[in-house]
């Protein structure tokens, strides 16, 4: 079967697999489903000694979002100490996680998503015309299926790990209360994005998470660099957020609904809505996914903010890919309905990103930047896998693994960099001797990231997709192991005011925080290869049999081998080469920035100055001058003229003129 055919058909399979139940069930049916679910679980409860987890759903599900909100208000309103804020934030996240696990327990045997909703806005805007547009409503809706549960657990694990890491390693960070408040805001938004069943609600939580990201990445105040970080973190990804808003608005303007379950069934059956509109909406939403997933060419908002608190960087690097992947997963029916163009555009974009990201990761010697760029390739690979319904579940599981490992690698890397007092990989080394825990964490993270896209690659349809997968897997492995080798191997040299002998490993709690992420990542990665897990997630596609396509292992292994050869054996030369390439790309960026200033920014400023300082004042002054001059002329003329003769002359002239006119008119 042709690859494209496979893609389109499998997209449809994905639609049915993911939303078949939703399509089949109306809202009432959904409640019936959930009641059936609770019945089933109560049946199970008998075996479990009387406790029915299904009965907890009405409060456990809202608790997932209520907990961070309460924690947010609590810290903002009363807590003033660093320890207090950290404790409340951690407790909040643990409650959120427990609530999620409770919901998971209640839903473990239910393939149908659990749905509940609370009206936020519901009005009748018109009493005539097209029925689709007579009413408008946005619900605070919860749509929890196994995929969202897995995503929620991963996100919470990342947040908890970052909080635990920050508790000790970020002790000296300014504004501790502010930090924890912003983290909870971020967690609230992320949770909302993962459970929302209404596009309006999704946009709201998406923007809220963006706001939290901005505040977290711009957390450090008082330096130019910090300010610039904040600027990039707000302005750049906002492009993607507005794209999402436009995409959703476009969908509403065509279909008159914002609820996912009622939107997808009418995608292909609504009169007057052509492929063009659906494609435009799909592309706009995909742009939002690409920007927030931070795949190339949208990596700048994370790579330019690496000086932010490490826990914030880890949060942004780990959580956003999960949110973006989750959005992409939910929008697969839309992309499928868009026909040929949207999947093609999305496929090409992530394919290119999967190769370009790790390639750029090989340039430069800034540790955190390298980690982020290298892992962005892995994120792109898993997103590419999500686009192929044969590998939807496996790729999504891989995405969760990459996201968690990415966060863990940032935490472990910055721990090592902090102890070695540098982020320049040329100056780091000897990790295994002095910082074995951090080195091990780096190794595990690198391995998980390198293998993250493997499952998706193994399930890839035949065809040219292997170029992206093959090259991507190899390059990701190569570039993601580069920082590992740079930190863990080689010699840590003495530098000015730096004594290598004094370097000690980080406290166990800090190391543990990184290991939590790696553990979650590793579990998700391995689980992706298990049939049971694939069936549990139930998003379609099939599981990987280790026997088939095992050759795909060659790509990441080759990447690792080259990395070992280049950075393990000839570390200094390779890193010097990377530094040179980094300088080259830096110079290219500066050139691009100069061009932007010259071709866009400066002309724009000139236009504004021209209007504000020249055009408007000139026009206004012209009018003012005209009036005052007219008044002045009238005044001087009047003063200069003799009264009586002027009056007589005017009287006669006017009378004669108008008499002639009048007489003429009369005749």
């Amino acid at each position, binding site marked *: 079967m042709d690859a494209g055919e496979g893609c389109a058909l499998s997209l449809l399979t994905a639609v049915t697999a993911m939303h078949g139940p939703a399509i089949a069930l109306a809202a009432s049916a959904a409640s019936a489903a959930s009641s059936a679910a609770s019945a089933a679980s109560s049946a199970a409860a008998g075996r479990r000694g009387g406790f029915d987890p299904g009965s907890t759903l009405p409060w456990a599900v809202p608790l997932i979002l209520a907990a961070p909100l309460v924690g947010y208000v609590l810290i903002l309103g009363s807590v003033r100490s660093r320890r207090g804020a950290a404790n409340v934030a951690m407790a909040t996240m643990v409650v959120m996680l427990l609530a999620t696990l409770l919901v998971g327990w209640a839903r473990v045997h239910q393939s149908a998503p659990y749905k509940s909703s609370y009206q936020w806005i519901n009005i009748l805007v018109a009493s005539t015309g097209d029925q689709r547009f007579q009413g408008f409503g946005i619900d605070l809706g919860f749509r929890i299926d196994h995929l969202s549960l897995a995503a929620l657990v991963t996100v919470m694990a990342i947040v908890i790990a970052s909080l635990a890491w920050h508790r000790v390693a970020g002790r000296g960070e300014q504004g501790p209360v502010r930090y924890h408040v912003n983290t909870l805001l971020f967690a609230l938004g992320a949770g909302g994005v993962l459970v929302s069943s209404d596009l309006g609600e999704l946009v709201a939580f998406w923007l809220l998470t963006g706001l939290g990201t901005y505040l977290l990445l711009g957390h450090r105040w008082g330096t130019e660099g910090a300010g610039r970080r904040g600027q990039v973190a707000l302005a750049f990804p906002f492009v993607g957020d507005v794209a999402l808003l436009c995409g959703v608005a476009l969908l509403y303007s065509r279909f008159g609904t914002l609820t996912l379950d009622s939107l997808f069934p009418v995608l292909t059956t609504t009169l007057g809505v052509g492929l063009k509109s659906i494609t435009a909406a799909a592309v706009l939403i995909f742009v939002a996914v690409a920007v927030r997933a931070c795949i190339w060419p949208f990596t700048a908002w994370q790579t330019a903010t690496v000086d932010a608190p490490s826990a914030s960087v880890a949060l942004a690097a780990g959580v956003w890919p999960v949110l973006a992947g989750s959005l992409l997963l939910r929008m697969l029916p839309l992309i499928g309905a868009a026909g040929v163009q949207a999947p093609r555009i999305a496929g090409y974009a992530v394919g290119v990103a999967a190769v370009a990201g790790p390639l750029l990761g090989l340039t430069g010697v800034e540790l955190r930047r390298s980690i982020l760029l290298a892992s962005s390739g892995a994120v792109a690979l898993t997103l590419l896998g999500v686009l192929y319904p044969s590998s939807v579940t496996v790729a999504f599981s891989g995405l969760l693994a990459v996201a968690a490992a990415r966060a863990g690698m940032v935490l472990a890397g910055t721990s090592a960099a902090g102890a070695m007092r540098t982020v320049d990989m040329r100056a780091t080394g000897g990790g295994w001797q002095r910082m074995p825990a951090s080195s091990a964490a780096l190794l595990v993270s690198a391995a998980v990231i390198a293998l993250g896209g493997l499952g998706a690659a193994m399930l890839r349809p035949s065809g040219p997709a292997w170029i992206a997968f093959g090259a991507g897997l190899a390059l990701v492995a190569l570039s993601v192991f580069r920082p590992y080798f740079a930190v863990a191997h080689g010699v840590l040299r003495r530098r000015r005011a730096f004594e290598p002998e004094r370097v000690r490993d980080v406290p166990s709690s800090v190391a543990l925080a990184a290991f939590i992420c790696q553990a979650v990542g590793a579990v998700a990665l391995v689980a992706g290869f298990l049939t049971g897990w694939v069936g549990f997630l139930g998003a379609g596609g099939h599981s990987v049999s280790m026997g088939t396509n095992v050759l795909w292992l060659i790509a990441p292994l080759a990447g690792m081998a080259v990395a070992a050869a280049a950075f393990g054996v000839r570390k200094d030369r390779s890193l010097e080469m990377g530094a040179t390439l980094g300088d080259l790309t830096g110079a290219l960026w500066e050139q691009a920035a100069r061009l932007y200033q010259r071709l866009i920014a400066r002309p724009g400023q000139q236009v504004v100055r021209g209007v504000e300082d020249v055009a408007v004042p000139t026009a206004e002054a012209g009018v003012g001058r005209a*009036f*005052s001059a*007219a*008044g*002045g002329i*009238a*005044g001087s003329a*009047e003063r200069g003229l003799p*009264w*009586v003769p*002027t*009056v*007589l002359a*005017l*009287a006669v002239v*006017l*009378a*004669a003129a*108008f*008499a*002639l*006119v*009048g*007489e003429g*008119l*009369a005749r």
Partner: protein
Amino acid sequence: MRATALVPEVVVLGAALALLLAGRKLPARDRNWLAGAALVAAAAALALELWLGAAVGTLFDGGWQQDRFALFAKAALLLALIVLIATTMSSTTEPEARDPLPAVFVVVFGGMVAASATSLLGLWAGLEVAALAAVAVSGLSSREAGVRLLVLSAVGGALFAVGLAVLFATTGDASLAALRTALGPTSVNLALALAVLLTLTGIAIRLGLAPFQWLSVEGGLSVSAIGAGTLGGLLVGVAAIVAAKLLGGLGTVIVAWAPWLAVLSATAMLLGGLRAATAASPRAVAAWLVVAQVGWVAAGLAAHDRRGSAAALLVLGALLLAASAAPALARVDVGTPLATLRRAQPLRALGLALLMLSLAGAPPLAGFIGQFAVAAELVRSNLTWLLTVGLLGSLLSVVAAVRVIRLLYLESVPDQPRPARGVRSPAQTWSAEALTPAVLVLLYSLLANPISGLALQGAAALKLP
């Protein structure tokens, strides 16, 4: 109709004579109460007019007519007289302000005659008496200005007389009723149109309708406050009354005078606004704002229908109140910034601000209501171009008024010792007299309903279509 309807005229004329005699015979120290007496006489005349004038009818074989138009016109003139006297009372201890009082009464008397006139002769007599008396009032404060104003007024009188003569020759009858019936649409010819326009020019000179505004503006600025109030207020009122009555009889010659009047009113509204916005002194601003509002009166008359003329009368009432008082309130001692009023006489400052805004047509004061009514009629009569010019003129007028308010309230005041109690500078007025016109202007807008009703009935009495 009983002759008692003439009592208000008699009171006004009697007051003029009594004031004249008292001013000559009484010793100087006993003359300070004359202004008070004049005020009482004016108030009595107004009360009598409102009481007796409500009866409609004619006297002297139809030579004198009391109708709603006459009631409105006389009441407005008498109210303006009260305002004028009230705002100049404090300065009537000086001869320049006290001696003219009899002449001021005569101006009003002329207006009352014109308001009740049924013939061209009555209109001519009323306007000429008023104009001569107004010039006399001005001449008492500045002889040189008085002479110039006399000549200018004489030119207006001559044009008016010549025009009336031609009209009389055309119709063979001096009565306005005859004029209305004798002048058919077919009888309009160049000579008649010329005559009508010359007659109206004569009125326009007294009305201060631009470009014939010298009498009210230049004249008003070169004489005392009471003279300016008389020229720019009372005389303008009398001229407007004459114009309204005469136009009522010239309906069939409308093709000749309607465009002329529309163009002149546009000129007045625009020129008045322009000059007011660029004028230097507050008195000049007030004088030019009067010119602009006279333009609105003329625009209402140009619509030449009942509602248009009623709107014109509504503006005229507001104009008379503000124009009679503004010169007195706007005068300050030479070299004294206007801002000192804010501290020395806050009520006078407030009164001046309100009068300026009313003259500019700023809401919600009397001027705005009248101008809005005129604007509505202009749209009805398809004179939208005139409305556009008028709105532009009003915009400029408001700018001018805000300039004055800024001078009053926002300029820093030089630290001067407050004048001792009882010691007043020549420009200083009593609070009550400063507030009277402001209160009346506010009441005029509050009671605009009865006033506009009366104006509409007055316009109906002009037998307009």
